[in-house]
């Protein structure tokens, strides 16, 4: 059983690479989240908005990124989670999710988190604080 407490500053959780972003991924997220902004699902609407094509919901990427911490729910929970949406995610992009320990306290572990595309660009970047139970 892996435990998050043992992670040292500078160490990374195992990266997760997602399958290429598909329209169905975004349709499913629209339905599950209630965010039906058509720039995420309909090509014409994305083009009208001046985009080259549909883009992923920022919250889809942020939601995916948080799952790096799910395996550790018995040890603690995500207390703070912040991201900046730095770049757009397009169809067929291949996104890799990353988290690296930045700081360790008695009750919390602070991580740098990022979602990186196939060109090595950070599309989402931020920080998560994982609070540990006694």
């Amino acid at each position, binding site marked *: 059983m892996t435990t998050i407490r043992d992670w040292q500053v500078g160490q990374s959780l195992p990266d997760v690479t997602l399958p290429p972003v598909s329209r169905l991924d975004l349709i499913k*997220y629209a339905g599950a989240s209630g965010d039906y902004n058509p720039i995420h699902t309909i090509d014409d609407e994305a083009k009208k908005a001046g985009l080259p094509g549909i883009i992923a919901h920022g919250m*889809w990427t942020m939601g995916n990124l948080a*799952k790096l911490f799910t395996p550790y729910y*018995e040890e603690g929970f995500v207390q703070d989670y*912040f991201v*900046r949406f730095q770049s757009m995610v397009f169809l067929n992009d291949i996104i890799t999710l990353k988290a690296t320990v930045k700081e360790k306290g008695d009750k919390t572990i602070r991580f740098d988190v990022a979602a990186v595309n196939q060109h090595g660009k950070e599309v989402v970047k931020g920080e998560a604080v994982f609070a540990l139970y006694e």
Partner: protein
Amino acid sequence: MYQHDIGKRSAKVKNVVERGAVKKFAEAIGDPNPIYWDEETGERSRYGRNIAPPTFPRVFDYGVIEGLKLPAKGLIHGEQRFHYERPLFVGEELYCYAEVKDYYEKQSSMGLLGFLVIANNGEDADGNLIFTSTSTIIINEAVRKAMSV
């Protein structure tokens, strides 16, 4: 243009952390962990029940902030922050409301950008704050001009 909206709030809306909605959401973010949907896993966990993913509050109804007029199109989600006192439990009732926290403008290479900060909060039945989900929305010059017409 939103300075006078700072501090405005919506009335609280009762929301339920619905089992089916949590499962659908976990699937949509590709998180297969059974802690979100399998009752037995939930019962055996330290929580004694299922929990919801940290970005789940996107689905709640936070009510309407009277007088706050947002453009229907052209908004950019710039930043997002979540703060939790504890994870959300499947089946629990939360009382949710939105508040305009801040508005400021900054000159950028794309012209004058407006930054609107909205906090979406969730409280339990006793009024204890359980989570805050804070969004920074960027409004560009073209969108602002279209609105003031």
